[in-house]
């Protein structure tokens, strides 16, 4: 098959060829970028939190008329309320373990700070940014964290403190990510670090494999795995409890919570969403990401469909126009497959031209998105995959009209038009 006569034929339909090529180029540019956005969203959503998410739920409680928590006496009062609740929750038949917490991964409410190797750190001497979690000796078990070095907290390590108390703990557990960042040579266990410019050292007693920060914002990627766990019950006029149900009993355990807590003390607020499974927290946290991925996916599918429809339409038109010419070629000995291939090659030529232009447009679009909407650089494989997709799309779309063309009988040549 020689290309030359094909190009000569295409020159007769310049406008149609340009329109199809343009459409393919635009489709390529948009689909590449959209699929890249989808890929990034899926990556974010798929990040493991480090928790054993099954059977885990969160209880949010607020006391009515509770003391302020600003003076030692009222802190002790709040702490006794909190410990009562812990006893109540732990006594429930379907509950395996409970820990007071200040937040959870994906909850979007975080305590953030910085760690340093010297006391009284300034912004220059900070080694890493981190999130703080507060919990008791059951924190690691309840959250289902994987302790990879050192030891867990025991009951004797756990103290209580007021909500705005800024004193730092003697011992902490850190995530591997944070340990690696602060002590690149490893072996963080037993070493001391200083939290938030404090002068009191905090000794690392344990290391967990992974614990994601509560924040799901896109800006938090650099320190998303950095976390410090402090052995403390925080006493404020509200409290969060992480609860692990016995395997498979999460629904039952969640139902038991509100009646039991009200029974222990009715002067509290438990809203409709005060008892929330981690699965719900996850769904809520990533709703926008999943939504965006679905929206983009739908738009991409429509786009590919429309482009395919355009190719089918125009090729059909060309086949109709060249009926007689095809008949002549058949009469002169061209096989059916020659006709079929002719249209397939023709499409490849047009789609190829469109794809070349599309690669350029995809890159320009990506640069614009990077400039205005904090997008990352489009990786080459996405562009290559896009090229393959539009070429394949063209071949699929052209097949039906080309088949019809190949079925034109040679006798058409003898008819006058």
């Amino acid at each position, binding site marked *: 098959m020689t290309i030359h006569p094909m190009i000569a034929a295409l020159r007769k339909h310049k406008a149609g060829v340009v329109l199809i090529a343009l459409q393919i180029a635009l489709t390529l540019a948009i689909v590449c970028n959209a699929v890249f956005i989808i890929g990034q969203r899926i990556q974010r959503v798929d990040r493991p939190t480090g928790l054993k998410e099954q059977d885990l739920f969160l209880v949010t409680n607020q006391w009515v008329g509770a003391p*302020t*928590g600003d003076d030692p006496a009222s802190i002790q009062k709040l702490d006794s309320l909190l410990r009562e609740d812990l006893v109540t929750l732990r006594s429930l038949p379907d509950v395996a373990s409970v820990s007071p917490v200040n937040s959870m991964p994906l909850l979007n409410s975080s305590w953030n700070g910085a760690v340093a190797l010297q006391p009284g750190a300034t912004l220059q001497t900070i080694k890493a940014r981190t999130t703080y979690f507060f919990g008791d000796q059951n924190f690691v078990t309840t959250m289902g964290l994987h302790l990879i070095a050192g030891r867990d907290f025991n009951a004797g390590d756990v103290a209580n403190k007021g909500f705005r108390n800024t004193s730092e703990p003697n011992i902490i557990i850190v995530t591997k990510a944070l340990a690696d960042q602060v002590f690149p040579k490893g072996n963080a266990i037993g070493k001391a670090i200083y939290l938030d410019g404090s002068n009191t050292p905090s000794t690392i007693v344990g290391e967990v494999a992974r614990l994601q920060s509560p924040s799901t914002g896109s800006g938090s990627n650099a320190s998303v795995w950095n976390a410090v766990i402090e052995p403390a019950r925080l006493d404020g006029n509200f409290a969060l409890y992480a609860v692990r149900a016995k395997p498979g009993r999460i629904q039952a355990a969640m139902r038991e919570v509100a009646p039991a807590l009200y029974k222990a003390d009715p002067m509290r*607020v438990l809203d409709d969403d005060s008892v929330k499974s981690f699965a719900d927290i996850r769904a809520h946290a990533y709703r926008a990401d999943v939504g965006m991925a679905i929206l983009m996916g739908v738009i991409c599918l*429509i786009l590919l469909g429309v482009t395919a429809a*355009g190719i089918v339409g125009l090729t059909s038109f060309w086949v109709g126009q060249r009926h007689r010419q095809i008949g002549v070629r058949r009469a002169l000995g061209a096989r059916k497959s020659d006709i079929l291939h002719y249209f397939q090659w023709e499409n490849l030529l047009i789609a190829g031209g469109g794809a070349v232009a599309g690669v350029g447009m995809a890159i320009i679009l990506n640069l614009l998105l990077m400039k205005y909407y904090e997008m990352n650089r489009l990786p080459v494989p996405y562009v290559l995959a896009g090229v393959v997709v539009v070429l394949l799309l063209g071949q699929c779309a052209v097949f039906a009209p080309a088949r019809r063309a190949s079925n034109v009988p040679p006798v058409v040549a003898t008819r006058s*038009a």
Partner: protein
Amino acid sequence: MFGYYLDLALRSLKRSPGLTVLMVLAIGFGVAASMTTWSVFRAVSGDPIPWKSSKLFVPQLDIWGPETRKKGGYDHLPDALDYTDAVALMRDHRAKYQSAMYQISPSVVPADAAKHPVHVSGHAVYSEFFPMLDVPFLYGSGWTAQEDHERAHVVVISSKLNRKLFGGANSVGKTIDVEGKDYRVVGVANHWNPQPRFYDLVNSGGFHTDAEDLFMPFQTAIDMGLSNNGNTNCDAIPKEAGFVGLQHSSCVWIAYMAELDSAGAVRSYRDYLKNYMRQQQQSGRFAWPPKTELRDLPQWLSYQHVVPSDTKVSLLVALGLLIVCLVNTAGLLLAKFLRRSGEIGVRRALGAPRAAVYAQFLTEAGIVGLSGGVLGLLLTGLGVASVSWVLPKDIAALARLNVSLLLLTLLVAVVATLLAGLYPTYRASRVQPAWQLKSN
């Protein structure tokens, strides 16, 4: 004549149903995707108070200094005020209306002992908050400046909380129990939930589905130790513990808004802010030259990036889809029109002017556009309905179908298809009558 073209167009469309269906589908889907994302975009980028947004201003003061900014790697002033400055600005009272505000989240105990306490969201504000933001009232009104001053135990509640506590009756003068203390209801706000929540961008980031339940005087809330339930940002750890420590710290947690009705008022308020900061500098509070910002509401919304960039990107992608659909339609119309070169040749040879050819083929394009638009309407309806399934609730709730959106969908479909039809029509009108007649 138009009727004749309409007839011709319908015949022509019927003659090649395949192509027609392809075109209508392409336009319908393209328009629907763009209109659906447009409805979301419009919802999140609307002006929440268009009649006076250019008169509402948010001040920012450089209380942390250039060093903190440099080390922190950012170059903007704090988004909110600390307690000292918020109270000082209120005391100086240089704008027509102004209010400092912070977010509270107290519990309310219903008088009916059988009901459990409820948790409410609200704001501690000054009396001028209500006239400044044109809060509509169902019953009563806001409190007075006198009551601000006296730190009175008064509240304005939402109509929703009013329904919950008083069954919707006029509750002005009745008392409610907030965190164990009695407060007199002075007003019931009538369904007021502006989107974005422009007076509280620092906390809400823009959008909230639930209206606020309760407003109480700022100084009363401070007195009662109702601590800040919103964001607190600090450049240094507060020296004292507790809520009182927060009030004495340089942490920022108080939103502020002022109404300035003329360009002169804006200028003098700018000068006032500069002077205030200069005095603070001279009194030795900080060492750097005074720096302040004063943005009006539209500028503030854009500065705070209220419209999520996700929404903008999806709008862009949907517009791209619309363009592809139009290129596609242009190609198909071209094929369709050129197929009828013979017919055009005959009409032209019989004396039809080019204008007549234009009229005929643009009518045909218009019909395709209109059909695509009708399909687009259905799909847009479907799209807007499924947005709530896909997007976060607080944003999806804003995207609603209304008459203007429907009309816009039709209009976009028709205009876009006519545009797409221009080139094919131009080509059709260029057909040489003599050549067509000869070949046939």
